[in-house]
């Protein structure tokens, strides 16, 4: 944890980790006894004809729950489905958790290879909808005709994570190839690779346009990249995609090369493991590996009161069970010792202004938190720029009163969306 410096009158300077050219260390995790896939549809949606307990699945097999053209997931391992159960995900979303007991002899599914492997948006939507590093690649491809620019993230959004930098550093060739496939799939006019200064030379080997980002948090967030590097400020309440710019991670692009190059849908994810001392190692593991197995492999023990986080220190999500699997979007697993956790409090805002100075989007956070605390979501959006928030979390990081400001803002956005859609329904 980075503490406030002794002389601390300015805004916080949290630097992204920058990996050095020789750093290619990667710990590869062997396949465990069980993999779990979380699927974003409720359990009740499953048609037994498509998926039921006892089914045998092969690695890379495309599995849908109800309809062959419906959403699907890729089996990350060969084995037998042992359990299908309900799982309550983030924001109370009903998900289905599918456990697969793995087998030693791995068999690869041939459907993707036999489909001819033509590089087209149809193939990508049909088979590569969930790429490591981009679980929503299908909708990305579908939105591609409206995009004029695609930005490949060569720096990770959150702190302590170096997955994308690692890809640029060690898988430059795959990245170059992947960019070629991406160009064919999306017909993008402009593809930009955004990297920290240390990786410019490597990035230039890919032959695409390279832009350099200042490795200080939150410059790696899409909205900041848009503003600083593309000179296109995202209007409040709009997304980057609505502005014609799509963001995709380097890992997903390199995975494209693996998929088309080898005729196999990629099932491995590279992520950072941040241990209790704050040290990070890059790990390559099968998608669906439970966090428990990852911790067990590295001999890390957790105790009651510790905090387990999927994602980085600023924007991650804490999890309540070690059975939660590594998914396509898991960029990091962070373990925090209970002695080091700083808890939030319910003290009212002091009006010290730390958050206002820290905010990269110039939000009046001191006022915003007051209206949000009182549930005035519409006022927050109209008067106090709630929707301009780029969700970096710096406000809560610096808060002297330790108010969970970021959570208030996320809740405010969520509730405001609900209000808006209710209004639209009634109109």
């Amino acid at each position, binding site marked *: 944890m*980075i*503490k*406030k410096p002794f002389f*601390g*009158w*300015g805004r*916080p300077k949290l630097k992204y980790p920058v990996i050095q050219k020789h750093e290619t260390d990667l710990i590869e995790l062997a396949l465990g006894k069980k993999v779990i896939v979380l699927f974003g549809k409720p359990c009740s949606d499953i048609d037994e004809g498509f998926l039921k307990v006892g089914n045998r699945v092969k690695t890379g097999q495309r599995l849908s729950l109800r309809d062959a053209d419906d959403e699907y997931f890729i089996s990350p391992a060969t084995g037998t489905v042992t359990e299908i159960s309900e799982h309550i995900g983030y924001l109370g979303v009903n998900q289905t958790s599918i456990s697969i007991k793995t087998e030693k002899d791995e068999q690869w599914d041939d459907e993707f290879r036999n489909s001819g492997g033509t590089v087209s948006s149809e193939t990508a939507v049909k088979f590569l909808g969930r790429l490591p590093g981009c679980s929503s690649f299908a909708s990305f491809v579908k939105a591609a005709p409206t995009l004029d620019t695609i930005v490949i993230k060569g720096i990770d959004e959150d702190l302590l994570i170096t997955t994308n930098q690692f890809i640029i550093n060690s898988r430059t060739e795959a990245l170059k190839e992947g960019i070629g496939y991406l160009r064919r799939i999306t017909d993008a006019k402009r593809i930009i690779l955004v990297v920290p200064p240390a990786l410019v030379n490597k990035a230039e080997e890919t032959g695409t346009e390279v832009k350099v980002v200042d490795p200080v948090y939150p410059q790696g967030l899409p*909205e900041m990249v848009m*503003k600083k590097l593309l000179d*296109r*400020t*995202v*209007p*409040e*309440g*709009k997304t980057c995609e609505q*502005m*014609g710019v799509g963001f995709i991670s380097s890992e997903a692009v390199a995975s494209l090369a693996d998929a088309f190059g080898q005729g196999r849908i990629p099932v491995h994810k590279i992520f950072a493991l941040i241990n209790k001392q704050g040290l990070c190692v890059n790990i390559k593991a099968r998608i669906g590996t439970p966090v428990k197995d990852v911790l067990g492999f590295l001999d890390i023990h*957790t*105790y*009651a*009161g510790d*905090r*387990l986080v999927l*994602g980085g*220190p*600023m924007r*991650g999500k*804490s999890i309540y069970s070690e059975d939660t699997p590594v998914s396509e979007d898991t960029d990091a697993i962070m373990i*925090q010792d*209970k002695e080091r956790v*700083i*808890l939030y409090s319910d*003290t*009212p805002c*002091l*009006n*010290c*202004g*730390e958050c*206002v*100075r820290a905010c990269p*989007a*110039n*939000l*009046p956070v001191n*006022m915003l938190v007051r209206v949000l605390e009182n549930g005035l979501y519409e006022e927050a959006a109209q008067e106090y*720029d709630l929707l*301009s928030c*780029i969700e970096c*979390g710096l406000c809560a*990081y*610096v*808060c*002297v*009163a*330790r108010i*969970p400001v*970021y*959570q208030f803002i996320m809740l405010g956005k969520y509730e405001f969306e609900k209000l808006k859609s209710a209004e639209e329904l009634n109109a």
Partner: protein
Amino acid sequence: MPDQKLLLGSPAPFWHNGSSIKARSYNIILASIPAVVAGIYQYGTPALGVVSLSISFAMLWELLMNLAMGRDLSIGDGNAAVIGLMFAMLIPATTPWWAVLTGTFVAVVVGKQIFGGIGCNLLNPALVAIAILMLSWEGLLNFDEALVNYDLGFYAAYPLGALKHHGVSSVGYYSPLDLLLGRQIGGIGSTFGLGLIIGGLYLMLRGHIRWEIPISFLVGIFVTSLIFNMANPDKYAGPVFHLLTGYTLIGAFFLATEDSSSPVNFVAMLLYGTMAGILTILIRNIGFFLDGTVFAILMLNVASPLLDKIRPKAMGKGVDYA
């Protein structure tokens, strides 16, 4: 499931820079030590008594209000102690106990708790107390009267009082160096200018107060008094005298910067400080009161929510949808 360990769930971010209300309060107390110790050295045990009593009473009122309102005990965060300390720094060393009791009651209960506690007060609590005492008991804050029995070894007339009653000629009795080193009478912790400046610099550098407010306050005082002085040097004292007397320095570094009653945006802070400085000199030079700092800062406290409307445009506001 007994074997299942409970992990801690919480919202992001999972890092915090470690700052806290406690650290902030104790740093303010730390920064005020040079000025307070100088005051105690000058006025002896009575000053120590007043400071201790004021801090204790302030914390006691806070505790009683916490219990009465059924809220979490908040005396541990040090804010009440800071209010008590600020109040003690502003009053003379001979203040009777009942005045300290009343003053801290006004400060903590009326100034802070009835608005909802820490962060909700509209006005600086210590200044509310001083203003009420000033208006209710005329002689209480008359430093010439209160400190008449002291033989301090320097020209012991309250500088701003001398200026008001005897005109600019009396300014000659005070050298800037003497004023800076606390060789003047006044509140326990408000006369040792050097100590206040050191404390203020410490707080500014560590980020516990916003540098914009004290600097613009001092600039406001300097420029306004300079204009008055240039317009009529026979009637109005020069800027250095105003900067080093009365509550100017403690006001700049410790009172105007109180978090909850001051603005947070850059331009708003500059306006707030400058206007408080201008108003201070206006009250001193053409107003009724000897020292305008108290009312000037209170006035600007009231204006601060309005001033805070002057803020930079948020990212993405007013951008045309391309």
